[in-house]
């Protein structure tokens, strides 16, 4: 379903993704693991048509997302790592825009919106502007929105970041359900190794833009001679702490917060 070959992405002199190749079969749950700044999000951006690769090939369901952008976009859904909601609109309106953009028929859209907002306990607040939501609520809405349509491939970029255990449980139950019932292929990234171990059929470990290991969680543990995925991960990527430099987007977001804080 997803095929990536010798994928490279450079920004100036910095190589974010360096010669990465992997395949994800239809109906598989694939976890992409790596420390901060390893190249996970950049890879997802290339897979989802937001960035063009410097070199290498990508196929989504047999389509090259750099060329057949629209056809490729029809095949996937994505939950982003950082916020992507419109704060001036209500929860319901954010769902509505998503439904329209993804061609979900009106009736189905209403029904699913209700089910999902109830499931993620946002139904009571559906008429409130999203900017009044807490961080956790925004995150839940973001996930509920990602489930509004049923894609062939679902990308989840650190979906559990900032979620409480209840919502996390809801999320993984839902992911497993659509994966089993509708054969949705799932490509996810996470920092929680226990989650990856629990839901993923196969994992890939990326560090400094290079794929350092891939296989079933079991195989990776055996390969590294460790007893848990967490240990295996540390063994593969070392224990030094990485820091992503704050991108212009992050800086800007801080600036905007300051600015709005003064105004509102």
């Amino acid at each position, binding site marked *: 379903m997803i095929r990536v070959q010798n994928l490279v992405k450079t920004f100036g002199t910095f190589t974010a993704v360096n010669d990465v190749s992997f395949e994800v079969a239809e109906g598989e749950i694939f976890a992409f693991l790596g420390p901060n700044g390893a190249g996970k999000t950049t890879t997802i951006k290339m897979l989802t048509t937001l960035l063009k690769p410097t070199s290498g090939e990508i196929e989504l369901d047999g389509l090259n997302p750099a060329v057949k952008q629209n056809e490729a976009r029809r095949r996937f859904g994505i939950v982003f790592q950082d916020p992507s909601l419109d704060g001036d609109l209500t929860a319901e309106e954010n769902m509505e825009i998503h439904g329209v*953009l993804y061609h979900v028929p009106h009736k189905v859209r209403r029904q699913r919106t209700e089910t999902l907002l109830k499931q993620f306990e946002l139904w009571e607040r559906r008429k409130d*502007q999203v900017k009044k939501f807490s961080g956790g609520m925004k995150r839940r809405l973001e996930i509920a929105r990602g489930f509004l349509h049923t894609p062939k491939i679902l990308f989840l970029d650190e979906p559990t970041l900032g979620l409480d255990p209840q919502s996390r449980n809801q999320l993984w139950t839902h992911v497993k359900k659509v994966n089993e019932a509708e054969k949705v292929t799932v490509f996810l990234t996470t920092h929680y190794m226990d989650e990856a171990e629990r839901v993923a059929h196969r994992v890939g470990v990326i560090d400094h833009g290079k794929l350092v290991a891939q296989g079933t969680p079991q195989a990776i543990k055996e390969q590294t001679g460790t007893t848990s995925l967490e240990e295996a991960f540390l063994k593969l990527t070392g224990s030094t702490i990485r820091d992503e430099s704050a991108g212009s987007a992050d800086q800007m977001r801080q600036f905007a917060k300051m600015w709005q804080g003064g105004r509102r």
Partner: protein
Amino acid sequence: MNAIYILWLRELKRYTRSRAQIVASLGQPMLYLLVLGFGLGPVFQRAGNGNYFQFVAPGVISMSVLFSSIFSGLGLLWDRQFGFLKETLVAPVPRIQIMIGRTLGGCTVAVIQGLLVTLISVIAGFRPSNYSAIPVALGFMLLIALTFAAVGVAIGSGLQDMQGFQLIMNFLVLPIYFLSGAMFPLADQKLPLRIATGIDPLSYGVDGLRSALLGISFYGRFTDFVVLAVLATLLMFFGAWRFSKIEI
């Protein structure tokens, strides 16, 4: 088609929801209109040019449409920062539709803004010579809006952060306004200024608006219309092309 509609609606909702912002965005035109309009009145009159308030009102209306439309395009920057842009860019909708939806939304808001300033002008004493030409005036407002919303999108597509914003304000938006003849008559100017005003698209918008509301025109209404319509079309294509190239 639905995608265009829903994104158009979004712009309108965002506009009507920020009441404080509506009031704030009317502040500047009111300063120009009331302070400059009445302040320079006696000088203008003594120079034999008639009523300055009447003269400047269409210019201030154009200004509010210019600011509102160009900022709607630059609003891409905010959407990029708050992440909503990504949500629209990965959707299975051709980017041209996304761009058209937002741009039309921005244009509608700009025209509403122009109408509000027109209303304020009329309350303050502005009298169009010909009320039946209001639809023509509306048409020119729309053309100004389309032209500069496209400029905004074209620039906004390449902007990564706030730093560029001041630059655009000082070296693009304000010169476009000041060189448009919104505040002074274009007739009898020296050559350098005549050239500068001639290449400023807004000059034709202001002139067209003046011809509709006051019946006076420097370039001629037909020229105004053709220049703006051609420019708006070309800039729309340019904006759409730039928008389609966005990477995040």
